[in-house]
C-alpha cells in the first residue's frame, strides 16, 4: 500500500538487546552507548503503570536473577536522576513503579488549575457501564467485552474519580481489579452497585 507511510515516525535508537553478556553492565558504568536495557526497563515500568513490576517479572523479561533486577532498577534510578527525569522508579510494596518526583508538585498544582476538556465519550460511558455491572473486573476483561483497547476510556474514568483500583486479581501478573467509586454511587443516587437496574429487562421489546 503506497499510502501507509504516514505517521510512522521511526525514532532513532539502538535495538535493545537484552542478554547474558550485558548482565555485567547493569551494575557498573552504564553508558548511552551500551544502553538499551535500562531504557527498555523504564518503558516497561511506564506501561505497567501503578500495577508496577515485581523483581520476578523484571528478571523474567531480561533473563537475569532477582538481585540483578533490583540492581537494574537502582541503576535506572541513577540514569533518571542524571537526565533530570521528573518521575523516578520507586519500590512500593513488592513492586517497582514510576512515581512523580517532588519537583513536579508545583507544576501538578498548576495543572490542576487548568480544567481538562470535559466530555464523556461513548467509549468511556460504555466502559463505566461494564465496570459498574461486572466489578471487580480487570482491564483485559473490559477489553474482551468491548473488543477494543480501553486504556484511554479507563483512564478518563480513573482521572474523573468514577472508577478505581480496588484489588488485585490472582491471575498471572496480578493485574488490578477495577470497581466504581463512592462518587459514582453518589452521583447516581445509589446506595451500592447492587442497586443498579437489572440488565435483563433491557432488550425485551
Amino acid at each position: 500500500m503506497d499510502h501507509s507511510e504516514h505517521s510512522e515516525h521511526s525514532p532513532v535508537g539502538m535495538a535493545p538487546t537484552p542478554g547474558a553478556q550485558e548482565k555485567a553492565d547493569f551494575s557498573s558504568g552504564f553508558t548511552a552507548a551500551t544502553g538499551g536495557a535500562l531504557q527498555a526497563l523504564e518503558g516497561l515500568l511506564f506501561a505497567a503503570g501503578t500495577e508496577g513490576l515485581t523483581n520476578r517479572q523484571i528478571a523474567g523479561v531480561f533473563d537475569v536473577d532477582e538481585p540483578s533486577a533490583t540492581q537494574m532498577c537502582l541503576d535506572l534510578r541513577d540514569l533518571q536522576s542524571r537526565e533530570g527525569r521528573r518521575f523516578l522508579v520507586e519500590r512500593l510494596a513488592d513492586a517497582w513503579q514510576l512515581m512523580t518526583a517532588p519537583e513536579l508538585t508545583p507544576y501538578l498544582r498548576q495543572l490542576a488549575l487548568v480544567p481538562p476538556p470535559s466530555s464523556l465519550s461513548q467509549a468511556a460511558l460504555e466502559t463505566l457501564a461494564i465496570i459498574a455491572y461486572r466489578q471487580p473486573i480487570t482491564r483485559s476483561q473490559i477489553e474482551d467485552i468491548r473488543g477494543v483497547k480501553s486504556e484511554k476510556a479507563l483512564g478518563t474514568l480513573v482521572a474523573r474519580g468514577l472508577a478505581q483500583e480496588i484489588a488485585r486479581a490472582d491471575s498471572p501478573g496480578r493485574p488490578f481489579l477495577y470497581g466504581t467509586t463512592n462518587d459514582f454511587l453518589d452521583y447516581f443516587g445509589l446506595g451500592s452497585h447492587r442497586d443498579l437496574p437489572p440488565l435483563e429487562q433491557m432488550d425485551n421489546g
Partner: protein
Amino acid sequence: MRLQAFEGPLDLLLHLIESQELDIYDVPIARITDQYMTYLRESMEFQLEVASEFLVMAAQLLAIKARSLLPRHGPTEIQVAYGFDAEYVDDERELRERLIEYRAFKLAAQALGEQSLLWAERVGRLPLPLESFQEQPTVSDFLAGVEVLHLRDSLARALARTKIDLDVRIVRDREPVAQRMRLIEKQVRDAPTTFVHLLRNRRRREIVTVFLAVLELIRLNRIICRQEVQFGDIWITANTANIAL
C-alpha cells in the same frame, strides 16, 4: 475462491481485473463479464445464497456486453432501437468510475487496518488523579466577609438550638482508627510509602481516619515521617527500632 470471500460485486470485479493484471482504466468491461457469470453460476450450484447485489450487477454486465456486441456503425434504426451508442458508453464509464472509486477506498481500508494493528501495540498509562494537587482555598478566601461578631452570633444561635434539641451528628468512617493503623504499619513495613499515596482515592472521612492513624503511629514511635521539600509529599517509613511491637 468462493463468492462469499468478496465484499460485493465490485470487490469481485476488482479481483477479476487484478488477477489477470488488466488495467482498470481501459479493460473492456465486456471482457470480464464471462468470468463474473462463471463465479455466480458456481455459487448457485452449491446452492449458496447469492446476495441480490451480485444479480443486479450480473444484469448490468450482460446489458453492457450485449450492447458492445452490436455493430458500432450499424444501421441507424438499430442504434435507435437499442439506445446505442451513448448509453452503452455511459454505462460502461459509470461502472468503471465506480470500480476506481471503490478500489481507492479498499486500499485506504487496508492501510487503516495495518495502521490500527501497529498502533494497537503501543500503549500509554493510566492518568494519576489530580485531586490531591487541587489548591485548597486560603484561610482569608475561605473566611472572606466573616467578622468576629458573626462568630459570636453563630455561637449564640447554636447554643439556643442545642437547648431545644441536642442533635449532634458525627459522620464516622466505617473503619476504626486502630484498624487503619494496623494496615498502615503493615504497608510501611513492606516498603516505605508516602502520605499522598496513603490518601489516594480516599473520601474526606477516610482521610480523617488515615490522618489520625498516622498521627497516632508517630506518637507511638512506630513510624518515621520525613518531608524533603516544603509542601512536598511526606515519606513514611517504619521505625525499625520499634518493630517488635
